[in-house]
């Protein structure tokens, strides 16, 4: 009876031993196979034919690799128990299927109804399937709709997450930044100092106070004072290296953290350079201002360091500079 079969859907064909005309079976189950008792595929639904041409006449067991029940190699194996099958094509693409096999009323063959299961998205892409390839009652199209909807919503959510992350970073950036000068603020300095102490590597703390700054504010006003602070911030930023931290702690107090820089000669040279640059006349709102700076330096060799005591040692050295006549750089006693 295979010889007389026509593959076009809708044309009259002899009834298969299922008791249903092939075109009826096809409308209900476009992915069915009728397998004869010897394992030969006698009839294939139109969607199966779209996946592999010429299925009819081939051996079911040569076309498919049976994963469950494992080792099934005959039609009685297929229909044993509840006939629940897991299988895949032996050749590429090795599309996976779920299937149900039921024994035919006569002749010892089986009717096998296949479905893509979770591999449906890949299968539709690989075989260019469309809505007509699925039974009207199959939820495949709704499933693909949901996959599409999920992708649309997810990509929107990803974009939004990136936006929110960016906004959060910007907010944290502002929270860690001194609003006037753009240097780090005290909070950021404390965090960085703690990180350096935890890291256990040598570093230096350089505390700096401007000299004669109050006079600028009193004589020329706060706008001129702000210009001076901005200029000083620019000088500090210009003198530090990547990885160093420059912070304004408030008023005319500044602080530098210098990881890896503990050589007294280099620190002393840096202090002198900073003071010299700051002592250059600063044009601020139409007037010329003159300020200087006092600096105190404390060095940590990285072991047993304590943030508070480091800062207070640097502070003490700073006051020593002030007492010694300002415009100079003093090193703290001992090491921490």
């Amino acid at each position, binding site marked *: 009876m295979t010889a007389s079969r026509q593959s076009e859907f809708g044309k009259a064909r002899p009834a298969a031993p299922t008791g249903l005309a092939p075109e009826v079976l096809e409308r209900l189950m476009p992915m069915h196979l009728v397998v004869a008792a010897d394992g030969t595929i006698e009839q294939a639904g139109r969607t199966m034919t779209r996946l592999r041409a010429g299925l009819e006449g081939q051996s079911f067991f040569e076309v498919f690799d049976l994963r469950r029940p494992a080792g099934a190699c005959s039609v009685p194996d297929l229909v044993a128990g509840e006939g629940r099958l897991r299988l895949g094509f032996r050749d590429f693409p090795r599309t996976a299927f779920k299937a149900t096999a039921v024994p035919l009323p006569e002749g010892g063959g089986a009717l096998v109804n296949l479905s893509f299961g979770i591999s449906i*998205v890949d299968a*539709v892409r690989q075989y*260019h*399937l469309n*809505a007509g390839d699925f039974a009207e009652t199959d939820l495949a199209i709704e499933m693909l*709709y*949901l996959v*599409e909807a999920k*992708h*649309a919503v997810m990509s929107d959510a990803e974009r939004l997450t990136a936006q929110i992350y960016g906004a959060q970073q910007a907010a944290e950036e502002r929270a860690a930044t001194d609003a006037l000068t753009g240097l780090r603020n005290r909070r950021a300095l404390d965090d960085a100092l703690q990180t350096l102490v935890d890291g256990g590597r040598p570093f230096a703390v350089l505390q700096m106070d401007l000299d004669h700054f109050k006079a600028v504010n009193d004589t020329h006003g706060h706008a001129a004072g702000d210009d001076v602070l901005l200029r000083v911030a620019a000088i500090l930023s210009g003198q530090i290296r990547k990885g160093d931290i420059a912070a304004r702690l408030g008023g005319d107090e500044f602080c530098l953290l210098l990881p890896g820089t503990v050589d007294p000669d280099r620190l002393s040279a840096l202090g002198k350079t900073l003071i010299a640059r700051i002592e250059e006349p600063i044009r601020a709102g139409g007037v010329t201002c003159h300020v200087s700076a006092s600096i105190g330096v404390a060095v940590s060799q990285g072991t047993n360091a304590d943030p508070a005591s480091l800062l207070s040692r640097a502070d003490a050295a700073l006051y020593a500079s002030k007492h010694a006549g300002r415009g100079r750089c003093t090193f703290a006693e001992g090491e921490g």
Partner: protein
Amino acid sequence: MHGLINRAIQGFAIDTAGPDAWRRVAREAAIDPNQPFMPLMVRNTPVTHRLLQATSRVLEKPAPVVLEDLGTWLVASRGTAPIRRLLRFGGETFPDFLNSLEDLPGRARLAVSGLHLPAIRLCQDRDGSYTIGVDAPHRGYGYVLCGILRALADDYGTLALLDPPPEEPDAGAFGAGSFHLGLTLIDVSFAEARAFSLVGPERGE
């Protein structure tokens, strides 16, 4: 009103009239122009109404026209391609799509669980033409649907005549009340349909 709806109005205003026009719309509607609408955040309905009224004034178009253009934009613009694809799942042909129209609110809710669209009723008259009813309370959805159907008919290559109701001054495009739209199919295969496949291009992970 769902955040996606506010965001659609924002996207439409920016796409069709430019960012400056959007800033004017936002100012008139008393919302922050730099703050994009969160798609999944539900805002009060009055915000949406203010937005639509402001868009209508800035674009100098009556509200029903704005809403219809918004519907067309949802289907036809590049940025909203996923919406066009989701709509095309409604059917293989335009008549198939019309027959699935009553499922549209359910489909929308399936995609985005908080998105509630009004119920749609489809009646086929004896002469083969359709009447599409959109339930109260937001008449505006009817005009948006009208724009969607125009653009989708194009997408399917179908020639269809749409007959939206005349604007009723007391009902208003934003007012309550139901909405009835007439639709006549002239030629189902008038032009080539835009390509549609059940799965989109593979996404890079």
